[in-house]
C-alpha cells in the first residue's frame, strides 16, 4: 500500500467523479477529496436513479411487481426474478415443480455468465483495454439469443412465475445451450485468459491493488465475488441451498489475496462453474409440468419471510411482509451492490485515482440496483 502524502487540508481539492463519468457505469457520483493523484477521502453519492421500487411493490399486487425486479439489476435480471419469486412462494407456501426448478437454474446461470461476461468487458475497458469488451459481447450475444428464445426478452427478463416459469424450454434451447457451453469452453483459455488474464500490464494493474480484508467485508456486509475474493468461501447457493443446487456438483471459487486480481479470478472461475452447473442441469432435466397450480389472486397469510439468492453481484435478499392482502404490505429489497459499494469509502483512502477506479470496477457495480 502506498502511503498518502501528508498535507495540509488546503492543499487538497475536491474532484467530482460523476454523476456522468465513463468509469462510474451509470449515474453514480463519487466525491473525491484529492491530494494530487492520491485520494484522501472518497464519498459515494447515490440516488440519481432512485425509483422507489419498494413503494411500487406496496401499491400493486404480487404479480404486478414482477416486471419491476429485472429493472433493478438489469444484468442479472433472472436472479432478482428468482429472489422475489422465492420470497412470495415461501410466504404463500407454493411448491415449485422440479422441472421448473431445473429450468430456473439453467436460465439463471446463463444469466450469471452473461453478467460476468459484461462485467469482464467493462472492467477491462475501465483499465483502458477496448477490445475485450467486444469479445465478451460476442459471447454474451449468444446467451441473449438463447434467453430471448425462451423468455421473450433480451435484457429485462420477467420469466419466472410464482410456482414455476412462464414457458417450457424446447429442444432448440437445449441444443443451443450445449453448443454455447462448448463454444465458451473453447474460447475461455485463448481469448479470455491468454489475451487478458496473462497480460503483464493487467497483472501489474490488478495485483496488490485495492486489498479488501475479510474483516472489512464482514463490517460492511459485502457479499458475492467481493467476499469470495477476500478468501471467504461463502455462496448462498452452497451455504443456504435453494432450488436444485444441493443436487448439483460445483465449487465455490475463492481467492485469499483480497486484491482486484482475486476478485477478477473469482468471476472468471465462476463462469466455468456456471457452465458446469448448466451442463449438469441439462443432463438431469426431468419431465413434468413447469408451473404449479397457483390461485389467480395470491393472498398469502399475514406474516413475514425472507428469501435470499446468489445474484451475480452477491446476495440478493427479499424481506416480504404480508398482511393477508393481495399485495405486499412491505417489500424490502436487499441489493448486493449497495453493501459492496459502502466499503469503497474505507478502502479508497490513500489510493491513486487510477487504482481507485480499478477497484470500483472490480466491485462490479450496477447503479440501478444500488439506487432501486
Amino acid at each position: 500500500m502506498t502511503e498518502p502524502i501528508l498535507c495540509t487540508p488546503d492543499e487538497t481539492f475536491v474532484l467530482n467523479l460523476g454523476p456522468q463519468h465513463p468509469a462510474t457505469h451509470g449515474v453514480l457520483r463519487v466525491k473525491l477529496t484529492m491530494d494530487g493523484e492520491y485520494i484522501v477521502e472518497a464519498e459515494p453519492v447515490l440516488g440519481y436513479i432512485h425509483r422507489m421500487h419498494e413503494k411500487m411493490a406496496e401499491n400493486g399486487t404480487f404479480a404486478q411487481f414482477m416486471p419491476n425486479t429485472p429493472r433493478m439489476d438489469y444484468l442479472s435480471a433472472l436472479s432478482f426474478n428468482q429472489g422475489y419469486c422465492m420470497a412470495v412462494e415461501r410466504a404463500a407456501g407454493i411448491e415449485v415443480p422440479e422441472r421448473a426448478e431445473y429450468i430456473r437454474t439453467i436460465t439463471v446461470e446463463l444469466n450469471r455468465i452473461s453478467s460476468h461476461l459484461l462485467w469482464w468487458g467493462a472492467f477491462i475497458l475501465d483499465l483502458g483495454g477496448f477490445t475485450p469488451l467486444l469479445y465478451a459481447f460476442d459471447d454474451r450475444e449468444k446467451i441473449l439469443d438463447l434467453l430471448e428464445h425462451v423468455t421473450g426478452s433480451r435484457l429485462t427478463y420477467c420469466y419466472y412465475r410464482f410456482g414455476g416459469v412462464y414457458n417450457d424450454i424446447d429442444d432448440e434451447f437445449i441444443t443451443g445451450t450445449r453448443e454455447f457451453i462448448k463454444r465458451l469452453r473453447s474460447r475461455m483459455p485463448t481469448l479470455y485468459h491468454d489475451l487478458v488474464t496473462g497480460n503483464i500490464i493487467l497483472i501489474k494493474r490488478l495485483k496488490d491493488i485495492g486489498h479488501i480484508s475479510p474483516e472489512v467485508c464482514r463490517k460492511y456486509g459485502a457479499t458475492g465475488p467481493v467476499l469470495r475474493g477476500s478468501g471467504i468461501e461463502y455462496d448462498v447457493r452452497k451455504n443456504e441451498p435453494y432450488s436444485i443446487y444441493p443436487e448439483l456438483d460445483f465449487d465455490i471459487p475463492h481467492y485469499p489475496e483480497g486484491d482486484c486480481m482475486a476478485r477478477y479470478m473469482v468471476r472468471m472461475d465462476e463462469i466455468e462453474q456456471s457452465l458446469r452447473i448448466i451442463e449438469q442441469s441439462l443432463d438431469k432435466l426431468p419431465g413434468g409440468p413447469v408451473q404449479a397450480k397457483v390461485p389467480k389472486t395470491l393472498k398469502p397469510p399475514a406474516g413475514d419471510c425472507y428469501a435470499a439468492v446468489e445474484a451475480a453481484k452477491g446476495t440478493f435478499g427479499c424481506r416480504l411482509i404480508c398482511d393477508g392482502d393481495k399485495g405486499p404490505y412491505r417489500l424490502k429489497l436487499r441489493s448486493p451492490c449497495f453493501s459492496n459499494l459502502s466499503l469503497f469509502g474505507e478502502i479508497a483512502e490513500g489510493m491513486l485515482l487510477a487504482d481507485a477506479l480499478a477497484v470500483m470496477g472490480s466491485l462490479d457495480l450496477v447503479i440501478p440496483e444500488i439506487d432501486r
Partner: protein
Amino acid sequence: MDTSIWRPILYLIGVMAFAGVNAAWLGWCERKGAGHIQRRIGPKEVGPYGLLQPLADGIKLMTKQLLVPQGVDGILFRVAPVLAMIPAITSMVAIPFSATFHARPIELSVLLIFALASIGMMAILLGGWASNNKYSLISAARSVSQNVAYEIPMLITVITIVMLSGSMNLEEIALQQKGGFWNWYIFPIAGQSIAQAIIMPVSFLIFFTCSVAETNRAPFDMAEAESELIAGHMTEYGSMGFGLFMMGEYLNIVVGACLTAILFFGGWDSPLPFIPSGVLWFVLKIYLLIFTFIWIRWTYPRTQIYKLLNLSWKILIPFSLAILLLTAVFIKIEGILI
C-alpha cells in the same frame, strides 16, 4: 541565402494538405483497424467501406460551434489546439521522404523534430490548464511528467544512433543504411559496426516504447485515460478545437513513425538491393509502423501513471544510458582496431 525559398513553402502547403487528409483517414484506418481487431466491421455507412466517414466527421466538427465555457482562460484556450497542430506540421518539413522528395536538406533535422515536439507538449499543458477543469489539469500534469520522463531515454537512444552515423541529418542517416534490409540499423546481422550489431535491437525497443509514450498512445495514454480523466486535456473542447488536437495527435504518430522508419528501418531504402528504392517504400514502412501503433492500442489495457513513470526512470533511462556508454566504447575500440 538559399534562393529556393519557395520550395519549403510549397512543401509546407503540401504537408499541411497531407497532414489534414492523413489525419482524417488515419482516423478511418484506426476505426477500421479497431473494428477488425474487435471482430466487427467498423465504419461502413458513408461511402464504400465507410471511406467517406472522415469527410462526414470533418464536416460535423467544422460546423459545430466552438464552445468556450465560462471561466476558462479565453486566449490560451483558443491558442492551445493551434499550438498542438503547428509543431506537428512543421516537423514534417524535416523529414525526407526519399532522396529527392524533401523540403530542404536540414543539417540538424533530428534535433529540429525534438525541439518542435517540446512545443507540442506545451499545447497540452496550456490547453489542460486553460480549460479550468480539474480533469484537464490532472491530465496536463500527467502528460508533462510523462513526456519529460520519456523524452530522456528517447533522446539518449537517438544520440547513440547519431554517434554511430556521425550525423544529425535524417537524410544522411537514411543513406547510410542503404542497400538491403541487412544494412538497416535495427538488424544485427551485417551492420556497419559491432556496436550496431549488439545494441540496436534493444535500442529500437526503447525508442519505440518511448515514441508510443511521447505520442500519448495506449497503453501509455495517461493524458486522456478516459476511464479516469474523461478526455483529459480535451474534455472541454468541442468542434475544431477537438479536431485540431486529434489531428495533432495523429500527425505526431506519423512523425514518430517516420522517425522510427528513418532511424531504424533505412528510410526509403528497399529491403532487397535489386528492388528500386523510393518514396513508396518509406510510405509503406511508416504505415506498417502506424498499424503497429493501432494494433498495440487496441490490444493492451492502460498502465497506471506511477508505474509508467517508474518504467521510464528505473528501466528505460538506465538501459539507454548503458547502451550509450557501450556504443561509445565499441566505437572507440573499432577506431583503435581499424
